């Protein structure tokens, strides 16, 4: 899909430029875009290095495990089909807390481990289970405490107050996540019966 979107943007740009008889617009735009992109990534180094460092301290201090423990009641509410002491639950909790800290690099492997464990509980290995759908709902709505990349890019363009968007962003993700959870519950009850089997 991304291939088509990329092609679509470049092609419509080229056509638009050709119609105006200004094909050189394409070249200038492309080169300028590439240059800006590298500048943005270089600008992101500072905040990423800094944030990864801080978050390693949090990891080494056991804060992720602490957070996972706090989230346990939430997780058992969200994943009623997963037994409390099943390994899947541990990975789900690690995935949730790594996401909250904005540690994408740590969250994804934990999420994939959780999927593998959930797959072991799955009677039909080709079809998603309710718990898998809930885990995906949580991960796609992207609840995180600090949007580091966005702050980094605001910093790069000389924002007087780069962190001003933390509160609004947090509230917006909480709303998106809540809606995701509610919809997940709704569709789950329409798709599965109370024992977690697909309705006919």
């Amino acid at each position, binding site marked *: 899909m*991304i291939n088509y*979107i990329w092609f679509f*943007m*470049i092609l*419509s740009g080229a*056509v638009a*430029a050709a119609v*105006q008889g*200004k094909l050189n*617009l394409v070249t*200038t*735009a*492309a080169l300028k*875009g*590439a240059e*800006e*992109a*590298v500048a943005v*990534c*270089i600008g992101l*180094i500072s905040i*990423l290095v800094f*944030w990864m*460092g*801080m978050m*390693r*301290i949090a990891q080494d201090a056991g804060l992720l495990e602490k957070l996972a423990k706090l989230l346990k009641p939430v997780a058992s509410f969200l994943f009623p089909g997963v037994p409390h002491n099943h390994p899947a639950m541990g990975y789900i909790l690690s995935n949730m807390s790594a996401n909250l800290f904005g540690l994408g*690099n740590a969250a994804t492997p934990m999420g994939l481990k959780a*999927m593998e464990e959930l797959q072991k509980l799955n009677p039909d*290995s*080709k*079809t998603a289970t309710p718990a*898998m*759908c809930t*885990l*995906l709902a949580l991960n*796609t*709505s992207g609840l995180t405490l*600090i949007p580091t*990349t*966005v702050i980094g*890019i*605001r910093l790069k*363009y000389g*924002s007087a107050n780069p*962190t001003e*968007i*933390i*509160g*609004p962003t*947090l509230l*917006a*993700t909480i*709303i*998106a*996540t809540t*809606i995701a959870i509610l*919809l*997940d519950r709704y*569709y789950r009850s329409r798709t599965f019966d109370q024992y977690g089997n697909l309705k006919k």
Partner: protein
Amino acid sequence: MLLDLINFISKMMLPAILVFVPLYAIFRKVPIYESFIEGAKEGFPTAISIIPHLVGMMVAVAVFRDTGALQFYLQFLTPLLDFFHIPHEVVPIGILRPISGTGSLAFVESILRIYGPDSFLGKLASTIQGSTDTTLYVLTVYFGAVGIKRTLYALKVGLWADLAGFLASWIICTIVFAH
């Protein structure tokens, strides 16, 4: 009241984490400076690894925008957007956000560059970008890893949540930043 709370969170969240994390870690006898350096090493390759993605996306976005193609397509949506008072400039971010995080980031970048990060549009674009994750990518990676073919309602839930995040960002930014 809610406004004060939102602004308070914006102001206090980062400093609170910066003080609390090392404080808690020292208390737990973690060698915090060494830990910081160890973790910080990962930041550099992460930033560098984004370069190919962002160059690819920003080249396409620059061509799409600077040639007037973006304006051309947006005019078809104008009546709908004007009816809901949604700023046109952020629409591509909303459309691309679930498909490609870097793609929407490229549009955020162009808004911050053109209008400035502290303009209303700049803050709105930043909030939309941060408010949700790349639904299609997450679904592909997670279900792909365990070979699930029937994903049932997962995509539907993800996309509705993305729309909710987009609309919530716009409403919240209007309340918090518009005056």
